[in-house]
């Protein structure tokens, strides 16, 4: 075992910390789901990009630092420790970009990655559909061939698309083979949300802001150049992306270690012994999550894969996050119900409540754990 960081990693941490200390805005930005906040967050992304901190794990040519997993985790720890703004480009750079790197053509990568990294184009996921529920194989939105123009005509409806209200481009699956069932006959498309035939209906979330949207597509033309990977091969490509969504990439331990430490401070300022154990629990769980992640990194660096383990991960962090924030609200006592209170704990609580739902509900995750890891027979 070796739980030390290398001198190079420590230097990387120092550099990140110094830059963040100097550059993180003193006042929180307005919510990224308001028009004003969306712009402010994009400006912040630009600032990160200019200092080469927007996409640390990407190749240098696209603005990254080719950081390894450990360095990426270090950056995330420092990022959340500094209280830096949420990442408005998150679904693009963490969720979609890995797929684009793996399945996109060089031309597609050149066309989209720089603007994504710089916060110029915000990408929006187009997975769920109103009738498909959490089962993506039920996708009904369809793409019809338009030979004449050299592309496809997309129609249908996507829902729960985060950043959809103000975002620029959508990635998602559409049925190209109407005769095929379930996960066959699906193709992965990139769609310009400014194209003719696209209508976006913002959906206000629990916090009142339109954090996600419903996207209606009515005969929207998408050129062949915006098909990702092969036609009818969308499912396997999507699987790679959801692997990222549910796995290591999106939920770095830094996201939880930072609020857990803030929770400790909150308690020390105004101790409520009745909440002592809950505070200790929240801190320990964040710490355990960090250790678990380093264990996963160790496995990956030895050539292993995450696979269904990501379901274990997702259940743990999503439930921990709710408990952590609920504990903070209890510590605040009477002020726990205030939405204009200090520390943004209520916002954090409302945000955390989505965790057990999105990216596959925790019920489905537990089925996956039982069936794919423990080998139990399929649930009826």
């Amino acid at each position, binding site marked *: 075992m070796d739980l030390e960081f290398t001198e190079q990693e420590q230097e990387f941490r120092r550099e990140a910390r110094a830059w963040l200390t100097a550059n993180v805005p003193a006042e929180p930005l307005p919510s990224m789901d308001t028009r004003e906040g969306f712009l402010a967050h994009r400006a912040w992304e630009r600032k990160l990009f200019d200092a080469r901190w927007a996409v640390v794990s990407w190749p240098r040519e696209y603005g990254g630092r080719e950081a390894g997993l450990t360095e990426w985790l270090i950056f995330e720890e420092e990022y959340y420790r500094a209280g830096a703004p949420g990442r408005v480009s998150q679904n693009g750079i963490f969720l979609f970009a890995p797929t684009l790197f793996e399945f996109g053509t060089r031309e597609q990568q050149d066309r989209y990655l720089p603007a994504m990294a710089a916060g110029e184009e915000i990408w929006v996921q187009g997975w769920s559909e109103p009738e498909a529920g*959490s089962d993506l194989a039920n996708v009904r939105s369809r793409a019809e061939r338009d030979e004449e123009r050299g592309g496809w005509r997309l129609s249908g409806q996507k829902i729960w698309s985060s950043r959809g209200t103000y975002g620029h481009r959508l990635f998602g699956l559409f049925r190209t083979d109407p005769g095929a069932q379930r996960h066959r006959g699906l193709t992965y498309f990139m769609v310009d949300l400014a194209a003719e035939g696209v209508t976006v209906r913002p959906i206000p979330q629990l916090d009142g802001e339109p954090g996600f949207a419903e996207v209606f597509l009515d005969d929207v033309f998408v050129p062949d150049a915006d098909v990702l990977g092969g036609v009818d091969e969308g499912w396997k490509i999507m699987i790679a992306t959801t692997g990222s969504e549910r796995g290591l990439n999106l939920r770095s331990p830094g996201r939880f270690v930072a609020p857990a430490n803030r929770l400790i401070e909150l308690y020390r300022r105004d101790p409520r012994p*009745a909440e002592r154990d809950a505070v200790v629990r929240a801190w320990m769980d964040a710490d355990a999550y960090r250790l678990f992640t380093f264990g996963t990194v160790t496995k990956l660096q030895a050539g292993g894969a995450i696979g269904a383990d990501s379901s274990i991960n997702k259940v743990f962090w999503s439930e921990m996050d709710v408990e952590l924030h609920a504990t903070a609200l209890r510590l605040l006592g009477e002020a726990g119900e205030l939405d204009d209170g200090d520390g943004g704990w209520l916002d954090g609580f409302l945000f955390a409540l989505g965790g057990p739902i999105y990216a596959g509900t925790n019920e489905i995750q537990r089925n996956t754990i039982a069936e794919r890891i423990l080998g139990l027979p399929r649930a009826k």
Partner: protein
Amino acid sequence: MRLAYTEDQELFRDTVRDFLADRCTTADVRAAWAADTAISARWVELAKVGVTGIVIPEEHDGLGMGDEELAAVLVEAGRAALPEPLLESAVAAGLLAEFAPDAGWLAEIAAGRAAASVLLPGQRLAVEAAAADVLVIGLADGDLHVATPADCVLTARRSVDRSRKLFTVDFTPTARTLVASDTRRALARAADRGALGAAAQLLGLTRRMLDITVEYAKQRVQRGVPIGSHQSVQHHLANVLIKLEFARPVVLRAAYSLARDLPSAGRDVSMAKIYAGEAADLAARNCLQVHGAIGYTEEHDLQLFMKRAWALGTAWGDAGVHRDRIAADLLGDAPAPPTPAF
């Protein structure tokens, strides 16, 4: 031994329930979210049903009832997420009836021409402090003041539940506003009435969240079956019902004890607040989970009830405060062994 409301009490409660089903729809609740005050024309109508005067003596045109009836009605208020400050006004009215019965407010409140709010020792936030006609303010030293918003500097605060119009109150006591001293015992009792009332509302909120979600789980079909046929969904909702059914008699007993000022009343109320709070908390969590993303939207009605539940879980002493009180009673230095509460 009879642990249930009387027929008269049930009749009164049912009247209120019917009234609220008609006059306090979720559209009405949303309207209160958007308004500056949640006190609307409905206040006078509530008064006509008798609701604003439950604890006001009959000589001041009230119903002259007590905590049992108040709790019964507040369950219905919770079920409807009634935006008006029914509980706060009742707590204030109780103190007015005891210490300032002739100040003229009681009949006004009973008639729905006035609304009251209250600030007790330890509280820093008052509901509807700006729109209320009268503010009853108890201080830590036991002094009781009857003031108006004009006597205070009010700062609006935003609750997660936008129908709760909260204010921090900066109040400078004067001889004019002082109505009584040495009221600590009455103030503590008022706080218990507040906690009981919150517990009652939390029961109603739990029931409503459960009803909404059971309906959804029956209707919503995924992969060809209603989601309510999944064992995980069934167990989520069964667990909510279990919590609710065990909280209900605990709240009932607290109302009984408080109404009679039994020695165990404080502990009984604390237990009621804890049990009802836990039921509502679990309901919010499990009902949201069963709904999935649709429940996470502001458009869906579930959020109205979840947010009220979170706010009331915190208000009038959260679980930690009440657990401390029970622990002191059961485990403290007092020599008496714990006895059944009745």
